[in-house]
């Protein structure tokens, strides 16, 4: 996804000299070509996330369109007040690009595990919150972010994630994308867990359960109409995300279904309210929290068959 990000940003920067890349001293082996091609549209502020956001706000006040990059935890939390006041309150078109999904840095410890960022970004007025599920979503949604008049936040993974979509045409900022149709259950996924959700639906099919798969890459504004259409009549609704169960996709969807009187069985497959202990691979943590094809399908099947 990170490669898709820089490739797409380079194309945007080539067309529009107001497109800038601003980094908090990260991007080794990824940004070098951009820096060489667009030196006047690039800034490294150093290890200073508050300044990353504040300076980006100043650039936006001058008519620039900065894409501000850091690791997800630092990008979302270290400068939260700058994001709130400088970007959201002033409603400036700064796009925050947050590198790393919850377990991208799986051996680094929880300082590097973004698990709250969707919740805190969703809480901000004027903020658009995006979590692409594959490189095609990164490309399409980044182009969408570049057209926004206000601030946005995109969390991308960085380990060469597979492509899920077969075409870009079904990907639009603010709209869910239906990847599979099934009448029994709906699996809604956001972020790099998307291919696992799709594989979970395959497994379920083999067990006689027909599940829809929905990519909800835009967490805010939530595509209420698209989601409600996809959820209608399903016995089980499951959300899957690399995020705490508080305030992320599960929170957003549960708010939506509660408001709309939907009484399907609801499952939030997410990280519980804890700092994951121990060290291991990305897969090790994903398995622990049932965020694998097997884990998702097992949970959905159990809910489906429960009396």
């Amino acid at each position, binding site marked *: 996804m990170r490669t898709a990000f820089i490739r797409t940003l380079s194309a945007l920067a080539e067309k529009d000299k107001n497109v800038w890349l601003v980094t908090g001293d990260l991007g080794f082996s990824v940004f070098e070509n951009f820096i060489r091609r667009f030196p006047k549209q690039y800034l490294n502020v150093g290890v200073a996330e508050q300044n990353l956001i504040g300076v980006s706000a*100043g650039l936006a006040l001058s008519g620039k369109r900065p894409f501000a990059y850091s690791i997800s935890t630092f990008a979302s939390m270290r400068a939260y007040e*700058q994001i709130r006041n400088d970007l959201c309150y002033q409603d400036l078109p700064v796009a925050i690009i947050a590198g790393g999904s919850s377990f991208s840095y799986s051996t680094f410890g929880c300082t590097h595990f973004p698990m709250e960022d969707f919740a805190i970004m969703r809480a901000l007025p004027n903020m658009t919150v995006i979590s692409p599920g594959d490189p095609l979503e990164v490309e399409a949604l980044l182009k969408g972010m570049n057209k926004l008049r206000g601030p946005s936040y995109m969390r991308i993974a960085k380990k060469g994630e597979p492509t899920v979509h077969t075409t870009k045409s079904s990907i639009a900022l603010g709209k869910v994308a239906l990847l599979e149709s099934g009448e029994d259950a709906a699996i809604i996924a956001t972020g790099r867990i998307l291919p696992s959700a799709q594989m979970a639906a395959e497994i379920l099919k083999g067990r006689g359960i027909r599940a829809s798969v929905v990519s909800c890459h835009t967490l805010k504004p939530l595509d209420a109409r698209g989601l409600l259409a996809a959820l209608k009549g399903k016995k089980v609704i499951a959300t899957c995300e690399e995020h705490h169960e508080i305030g992320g996709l599960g929170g957003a969807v549960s708010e939506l279904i509660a408001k709309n009187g939907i009484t399907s069985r609801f499952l939030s497959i997410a990280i519980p309210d804890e700092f994951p202990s121990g060290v291991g691979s990305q897969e090790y943590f994903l398995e622990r929290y049932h965020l694998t094809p097997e884990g998702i399908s097992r949970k959905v099947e159990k809910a489906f068959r429960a009396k």
Partner: protein
Amino acid sequence: MHKSKPDIEQLKKTALAARKMLIRIASKSHSPHIGSSLSHIDITTALYSAILNVTPKTARDPCRDRFILSKGHAALGYYCVLALHGFISQKELERYGKNDTKLAGHPVLGTAKGIEATSGALGHGLAMALGLALAGKRDGLSAKYVVLVSDGECDEGSTWEAILLAGHLGLDNLTVIVDYNKIQSFGRVEEVLDLEPFADKWEASRWAVASLDGHDFAELLPALSSLPLRKGKPTVIIAHTIKGKGVPIMENKLEWHYRDVRPEDLEETLAQVY
């Protein structure tokens, strides 16, 4: 966008009018932070009367000079200076603090001409001014970017992040004025978190430094007219000021960060203003 340079007596008159306006409107709106406003009025008067290439008519011109009041709690004094220079109508200022009005207790972008950024949380203005200045530099503009910070907000780490970067980039179109009135919200600066040796810290961060009396137009005007102080370096003007300046009962008094002027004391207070 050239301004005819007013003489010092004219600047004094404008600053006096701003102080009286501030006291009157603060009293009727029960507003705090009067001391903080009084300490910057001479500086902001000098800027808007004689230094900044911006007028109400050019307030959206991309080539204009830009000013950010980073110490946003001193907004009311700033609004008075903006009103005296035609950016805010007197009528709007008179309604300050009333229901269904625009001007907040801290400046908010888009609520009045002349307000270039939202402030209120300390330590935000300098980074935004830096972004503006860098964009101006790369776009080849000759504009100046001036930001007024308080001494208290030099406690903020975010202020120092921006100080380091501006020095590193050598942004000589960027000027910081420190309203160094030596009193922050809970005590004297030297007791709470001493900034000294203050000038040395800026110099070590590659800034050109001038220290002057922030209430003396004979010192302010030459310094502000010769920006940058050094080519290739951002400028900081450490303006030694007095919190509550111009109202004897308020001068150098911490409590005038918080108190308002009771209506029954207004006439007597106004009579003191100098």
